[in-house]
């Protein structure tokens, strides 16, 4: 019993030490540092496309690296591949399980993946004459909330079983398991240099991981509820999170702490999704209240809103060339704005 008490005391002392170390470098915050920056222009984007085709709630979408194709996932049991320029459907992938929560496009454009309440990540080859299932990645003991391809041979997943995992697509096995969260993992984002990733979970923490050695390198506190969305800031030195506590936050990795919070007393809906403009200046955050709010990431001010969906905005995405933003909703439509 004595050893447990000893360990608990040490854990508390370390937490206090970390808090003090963070305070010691907290000589300002982002909004104060950006007080001299000219406000971002009022952002008024128009719907350029409304993509109709899904028959039920859309849960996820992901752009291809070609800036034109995108994949969306709906609980109608389908993945749809869209040509965003024409608005046409290029492919439909029927899913074995309709309880899908995530989808992903491989950087090569050759593969897409989906996963959800089946606890599996299924990978499909789009380039074979008929779309084929390449692998079923089956080892998580909880739902699959997010998947991202590193390449055609490696996939990262986040799961309701509180772990994230790196999979080898050739063997179908987990190469590395990332263990540290104590709540369902809800989202992940790869660093621009692909050496690390961040995860957000229902334990209200965001964590930074080394992809190769599996080590949790940093833990970010501040949210008071589930973190549903997470993204690296371009440049890779900061991350943005979105939570059921109705706020988004920016954490700087090198200062190891929250540097600004994006919130408004009038906003009392949870954040479901987020995406950043190319420079990082604009944050597009989807909320349960059917809107997507646009935030100035440096000054912390709301600079616009995308209204048009008739139900919760469940997913948002900006293609690599930054030319537009896509929102997907429980109303079964995707909209492209710029």
């Amino acid at each position, binding site marked *: *019993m004595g*050893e*447990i008490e000893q*360990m*608990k005391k*040490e*854990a508390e002392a*370390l*937490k206090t*030490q*970390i808090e003090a*170390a*963070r305070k*010691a*470098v907290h*000589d*300002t*915050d*982002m909004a104060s*540092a*950006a007080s001299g*920056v000219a406000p*971002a222009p009022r*952002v008024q*984007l128009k719907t*350029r496309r409304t993509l109709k085709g899904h028959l039920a709630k859309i849960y996820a979408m992901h752009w291809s690296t070609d800036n*034109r194709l995108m994949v969306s996932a709906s609980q109608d049991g389908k993945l749809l591949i869209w040509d*965003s*320029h024409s608005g046409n459907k290029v492919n439909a992938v029927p899913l074995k399980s309709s309880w899908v929560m995530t989808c992903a496009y491989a950087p090569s454009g050759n593969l897409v993946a989906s996963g959800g309440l089946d606890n599996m990540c299924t990978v499909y080859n789009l380039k074979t004459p008929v779309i084929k299932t390449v692998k079923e990645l089956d080892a998580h003991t909880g739902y699959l909330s997010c998947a991202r391809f590193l390449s055609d041979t490696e996939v990262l997943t986040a799961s309701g079983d509180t772990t994230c995992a790196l999979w080898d697509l050739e063997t179908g096995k987990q190469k590395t398991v990332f263990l*540290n969260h104590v709540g369902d993992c809800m989202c992940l984002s790869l660093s621009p240099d692909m050496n690390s990733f961040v995860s957000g979970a229902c334990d209200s923490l965001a964590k930074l991981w080394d992809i190769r050695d599996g*080590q*949790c*390198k*940093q*833990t970010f506190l501040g949210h008071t509820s589930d973190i549903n969305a997470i993204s690296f*800031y*371009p*440049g890779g*030195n*900061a991350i943005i999170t979105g939570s059921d506590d109705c706020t988004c936050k920016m954490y*700087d990795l*090198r*200062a*190891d*702490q929250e*540097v600004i919070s994006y919130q408004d007393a009038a906003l009392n809906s949870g954040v479901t999704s987020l995406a950043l*403009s*190319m*420079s*990082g*200046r*604009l944050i597009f955050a989807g909320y349960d209240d059917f809107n997507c709010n646009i935030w100035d*990431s*440096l000054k912390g001010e709301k600079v616009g809103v995308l209204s048009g969906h008739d139900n919760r905005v469940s997913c948002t995405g900006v293609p690599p*060339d*930054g*030319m*537009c*933003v896509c929102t997907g909703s429980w109303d079964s439509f995707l909209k492209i704005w*710029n």
Partner: protein
Amino acid sequence: MSSNSAGGLVSLQKSVKQLRFEAGIRRIKVSQAAAELKAFCLQNAHKDPLLMGVPSSDNPFRPPKSCALF
């Protein structure tokens, strides 16, 4: 966390090990971090289509001004 003391101890040991690791990292001042984030953002602003606006001639989501009527 497990309620049986053996499981609880192992779990605690892992937590302490992780906390020790996290406590040991080097942190830079927020003023320096914020300055660099700000600089990155501002340097890349002119390339950001959603921030600068997309002229319709370059907008793949907008038809060109002249339309042929059939």
